[in-house]
């Protein structure tokens, strides 16, 4: 085997790895969630670690829960509870917000199914 042959084999292997990563690595699988309070810099949490997050907003604490790769508002000190009714979010791009308490969550991912949700 010549050097060129070795190079071809290495390149082919590298290309395979790149292509695998690009096309097969479940791009819509949610891995992280972005939590934002007011206009503060957002905080990022992994979705594979179950936890409860309390976010202090102007009205009080909004409570978020991460469980089995999903996230939701459990409670929020607003009146409408639109955020709580949004339920579990798991797909990249899905989001919910408590506008009165200025807390928002968005599931992050490589290639979200939607660029925006009209509502």
């Amino acid at each position, binding site marked *: 085997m010549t050097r060129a042959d070795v190079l071809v084999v290495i390149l082919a292997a590298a290309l395979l790895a790149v292509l695998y990563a690009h096309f097969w690595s479940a791009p819509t699988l949610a891995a992280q969630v972005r939590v934002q309070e007011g206009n503060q810099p957002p905080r990022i949490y992994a979705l594979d670690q179950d936890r409860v997050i309390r976010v202090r907003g102007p009205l009080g604490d909004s409570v978020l829960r991460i469980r089995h790769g999903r996230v939701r508002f459990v409670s929020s000190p607003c009146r409408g509870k639109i955020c709580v009714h949004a339920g579990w979010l798991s797909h990249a791009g899905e989001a919910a917000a408590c506008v009165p308490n200025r807390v928002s969550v968005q599931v992050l991912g490589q290639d979200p199914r939607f*660029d*925006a949700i009209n509502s």
Partner: protein
Amino acid sequence: MPFLPRVPRRPAARSLARLGIGLLALALAACDRSGGAVYQQQFFAFGTLVDVTIYGADTALAQKATDAAEQDFHRMHRAWHAWHPSDLTRTNHRLATGRAFKAPASVLALIRRSRVLARRSDGLFDPAVGKLLALWGFESDTPPSGPPPDPARIKALVAAHPSMEDIEVRGDRVRCTNPAVQLDFGAFAKGYGVDQVIEHLRRLGIRNAIVDAGGDLRAIGRHGDRPWRIGIRAPRGPGVLASVEVSGDQSVFTSGDYERYFMYKGKRYHHILDPRTGYPARGAVSVTVIDPDAAVADAAATALFVAGPKQWVTIARRMGIHYVMLVDDQGTVHMNPAMAKRIHFETDKAPKVVLSPSL
């Protein structure tokens, strides 16, 4: 090396190697294009969560553009607030005097634009009904919880027939001939504001972006080599009802009875009031409109919601709207054929669809 022929094949190997390097570079470039070129930022402004997505601009420019958008929204919010002291509340006080006065430029632009749309909507979209909205408690930082207001007071306001037609505009001077008029641009300012911000982004050199103000949006350009993908929320329950692809320059606006409402004795009272009755419009639960202009889309979504399943085709034609989807209170989806071609349902079971004649 038993599995490789020992025949010298250098030229072939060299061209293969070149091919390999070329493919690798292509694959890496593709990764870079799809992953690194999107800039997204959210902020609270305009009384809602605003989401700006920019494609294909360098980070410094995208950051600058997003900051500009945020400042614009804050400025417009201060100018057009319907119940906190603003250019609009000052304008309302002076309209109530019945005398002519010089209107602030920020409000004059809204009056001019919305008057035309109110007329085209046959008055179903009419920002002059601020007193009705206030009576129902929708002009407040805390949403109303019921009971509904006194029917006699609703009846009196409807009989006074406040309308944009009652406002005379001469140059920059305005005068109102009906004391029942009180402007509230809640069904229009968001669309108009999104248009302003998109123009600002364009002046800064942004070509591909979505400006999404609490779920109502205008999208320009594309997401690289594909159109923008927009999900449309299911009006009842979480999740997405349908999706639509947009590219070039299009606004997608939805008016729904789930946005601001209260329940009283098992009945839903929402904020989209029918100016003809003074009560929340019945028949539709959401209306989605696609139009190049966000201000038009915003006004039309409201007007067609009020028009309901029986009248929306007539009003859409009057307003020159080409893409409409209305979900009625039975869950049936009403669409014109052009919209039906663009809509892709995302639910497990497709809803019942009624196609209208072409618009």
